[in-house]
């Protein structure tokens, strides 16, 4: 029996440039226990809700996360719209769906690049980020912002996408899909990636369920939870099947994300074909009075926005629960028993977004 030692992992650049600290209790090279600690970049964004009027808080809600910013703004808007009984026009719901899916593409490609980098595959990292550039260009062309879109507002959306642009976007996706298929082939079939990820950081289906894993972490372990199936925005009118893998290891979580890229492309195509003509926003009347929990599927899992209003133009309370927080207990479970050299890959496999988690 060897002596136990503790190796600190983070908070300065632990595999990804975000501050999370994990104390790894080691026995030789094997991790016996992992103790995470968080709270390095708490910004107090939720408190700002009392100082900003509810339509302006969308800008702050969006800036909770730099990667899935559109979905944050949309979930907040959904919550306020439910409190105020606003019926959002159909076209706005479809536009929200299209932008959400582009956000998902951009987030997944960013993660795939980082994952390739963590595995040690720099060439693939560059290829993934080059593909991501196409998505960012589309987002900039349609919303004006590459990363922070700022196109969602209470009651609808700020900008419309003209019909001709939508047709061109759908056509461009064909070329993009072909390019993506090459990259996906490497992630799914390349021997060096399989050797580095298969059987690493296994999370069983029961553990994933009981520890509250969400998003690709849960779907990689065989738990078929996908909030898009609840039919918010225009997802109820589109056909898709959640991607579920049963391996529970890093490879399965990677495969879920790779396959979700194609689901997203398909959803954008469907939405672009079905989008109706009409208004893109309704003017909200009065102030929110009541409370609501709004849920949406982020690229990382379930996102919850809670808002409470008292009839004034300032909301009383806002609460955000992000998917990274729910994926931390499964991460601790995955880390126990793994090799020290596998820790970066496992930590990255839950797609941690610490800036989003601590707000």
């Amino acid at each position, binding site marked *: 029996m060897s002596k136990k030692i503790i190796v600190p992992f983070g908070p300065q650049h632990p595999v990804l440039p975000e501050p999370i600290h994990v104390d790894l209790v080691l026995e030789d090279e094997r991790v016996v226990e992992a103790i995470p600690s968080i709270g390095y970049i708490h910004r107090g964004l939720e408190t700002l809700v009392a100082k900003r009027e509810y339509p302006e808080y969308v800008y702050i809600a969006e800036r909770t996360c730099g990667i899935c910013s559109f979905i944050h703004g949309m979930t907040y808007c959904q919550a306020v719209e439910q409190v105020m009984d606003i019926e959002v026009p159909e076209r706005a719901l479809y536009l929200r769906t299209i932008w959400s899916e582009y956000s998902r593409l951009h987030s997944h490609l960013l993660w795939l690049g980082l994952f390739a980098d963590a595995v040690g595959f720099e060439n693939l990292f560059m290829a993934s980020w080059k593909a991501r550039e196409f998505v960012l260009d589309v987002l900039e062309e349609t919303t004006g912002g590459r990363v922070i879109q700022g196109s969602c507002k209470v009651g609808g959306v700020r900008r419309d996408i003209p019909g001709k642009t939508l047709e061109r976007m759908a056509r461009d996706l064909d070329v993009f899909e072909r390019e993506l298929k090459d990259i996906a082939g490497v992630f799914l*079939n390349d021997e060096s990636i399989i050797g580095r990820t298969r059987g690493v950081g296994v999370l069983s289906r029961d553990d994933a369920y009981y520890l509250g894993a969400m998003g690709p972490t849960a779907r990689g372990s065989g738990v078929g939870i996908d909030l898009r199936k609840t039919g918010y925005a225009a997802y109820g009118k589109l056909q898709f099947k959640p991607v579920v893998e049963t391996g529970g290891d890093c490879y399965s979580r990677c495969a879920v994300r790779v396959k979700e890229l194609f689901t997203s492309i398909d959803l954008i195509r469907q939405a672009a074909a079905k989008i109706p003509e009409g208004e893109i926003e309704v003017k909200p009347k009065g102030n929110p009075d009541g409370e609501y929990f709004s849920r949406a599927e982020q690229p990382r899992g379930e996102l919850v926005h809670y808002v409470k209003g008292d009839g004034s133009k300032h909301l009383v309370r806002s609460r955000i629960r992000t998917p990274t927080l729910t994926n931390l207990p499964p991460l601790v479970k995955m880390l126990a028993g793994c090799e020290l050299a596998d820790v970066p890959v496992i930590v990255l496999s839950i797609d941690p977004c610490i800036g989003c988690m601590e707000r």
Partner: protein
Amino acid sequence: MGYFEMVKIAILTTLRSPATRRYPAAAAKCTPISRGRVTIDPARCISCGMCMKKCPTDAICVVKDEKTWSIDRLKCVVCNCCVEQCPVHCLTMETGYTPSMTVHEGVEVIQITYVKPERPPRKEPDSKADSGTQPE
């Protein structure tokens, strides 16, 4: 399973031209609606202060008495909110970004040159005859 999955991408990347631009020799890529920086036309600003009220980061400050409009470029998050709220459309969103800086150059203060046009003197109420012509 395969050992040469990456070869196709690697060869194509080698043969194709670079995916990046030679900035600043080549101009940066932007679209007509890209949000770069907020600019003001001081000749049209009526100092109503709507942009200051709606700014989510309190980057804009309008002083009515001194007739100044100021913006802290490092606080501004380029959300387009002020441009949308401006009643006289004197604010515009340029596509070029503010250049990065090593020293905070302070708040950019712009003197408002708008002069309120004088109203033409009111006519004496000789319109009674006009109103009388309307059908009942």
